[in-house]
Each structure stands twice: as C-alpha cells, then as structure tokens.
C-alpha cells in the first residue's frame, strides 16, 4: 500500500507532542505524504502564537527546563526550531494544521490568537470528512 495521506488528532499541549508533529509532518512532507493535524482541546494550545510548550513526561516537574534541555540537544542534531520545521512543511503544501472550532469556543481562543499559517478552523464533521480518504488516522 502506498501511503498518501495521514490524519492526526492532537489533543495534548506538551513539548513532546509538538516535536512529534514537527518530525512526522516534515518527514511526511519530504516523502510526499499529506499530513493533516486536527488540534483539539489542549492540543489547540500548540497552535497559539508565542506558546512555549513544556515537556510533560519528565520524572519530576522541571518548570520548563525539560523543554529547554531537549531544545539544546535538538540543536546539536541540526534542528534549530521545531516551529520553523513545521512552518516549512506547511509552506510546501503537504502539512495542514486545523484548529478545532469547539475548542476555540470552549477556551475562548480567537482566530487571531493562532499562528498565521494554520488553516480555517473546522469542526468534528469537517475533520471526519477529511478522514474519508485517509490511509491512517492517528491520535497523538
């Protein structure tokens, strides 16, 4: 089977999930795979301007130090910015980031609070329609 389109549900606001989005989205883009990320509940935070995700899976609370440490190590491996990685993939046209309309209402987040390169917000039906021809649907 040739994978052409993968849909992701992003429901978590952690640095780890953001890194997964950036890695899978940009690599998918390089491999000619369309990736659609539906960001709902806490996952919508990742699409907010100036939001700095923290590492959540650390063995003890580190007040943002976990993400700082990961960023430092990623830089060594050639990744300066996860946001740029995902932005480039969006600009290439293979990655689309969809804010969830219901979450925007529940959390009082406005369109202008979100990154400029995200798609128009969609609801449940909109996302499920996108899934009708997806090769895989993954919940992050």
């Amino acid at each position, binding site marked *: 089977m040739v994978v052409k389109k993968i849909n992701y549900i992003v429901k978590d606001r952690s640095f780890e999930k953001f890194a997964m989005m950036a890695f899978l989205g*940009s690599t998918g883009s*390089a491999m*000619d*795979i369309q990736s659609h990320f539906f960001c709902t509940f806490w996952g919508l935070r990742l699409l907010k301007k100036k939001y700095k995700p923290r590492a959540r899976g650390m063995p003890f609370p580190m007040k943002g130090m976990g993400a700082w440490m990961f960023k430092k190590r990623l830089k060594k491996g050639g990744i300066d910015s996860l946001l740029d990685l995902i932005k480039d993939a969006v600009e290439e046209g293979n990655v689309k980031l969809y804010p969830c309309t219901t979450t925007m209402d529940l959390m009082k987040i406005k369109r202008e609070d979100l990154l400029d390169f995200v798609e128009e917000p969609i609801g449940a039906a909109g996302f499920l329609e996108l899934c009708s021809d997806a090769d895989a649907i993954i919940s992050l």
Partner: protein
Amino acid sequence: MVNKTFDFTGLKCPIPVLKTKKELKNLVSGQIIEVISDDVGAKKDIPALLSKIGDELIELKEVDKNLVFTIKKA
C-alpha cells in the same frame, strides 16, 4: 560518477532525510549524489525515503562509523 557529496554527519533524525530530499530536488534525472550520515536511523530512513519518492539507492557502504549512500535521481 558522483556529481556531488553531502556530509550530514552530526545531524540526527529526521534532518538527514529532509536535507537529502532537498538536495535531490535540485538535481536533474540521472545525476548521482553521495550522502554521508552517522545517524543510525538513517540506515533505514534514507532507503524508505527513496522508495517512496522513486529515486534509486545504488549503494550503501559503511565506512568507519559512517553510512555512505550513493543515490541516483530518477
């Protein structure tokens, strides 16, 4: 004959894959490049990329701790 060599040592997944794809984009059909990586994941990742985008892996050598991929643009 290799047209160009790219040294991606020190870079970690997924950067070698992304950079390889970027360089392949700039080539014309039939041109050959060599890509060097010391990322262990690249051993499977770069062949996976090539099989997906249709370019050809001519050879994969291990030199010291580096992987050397010879790739022909389709």
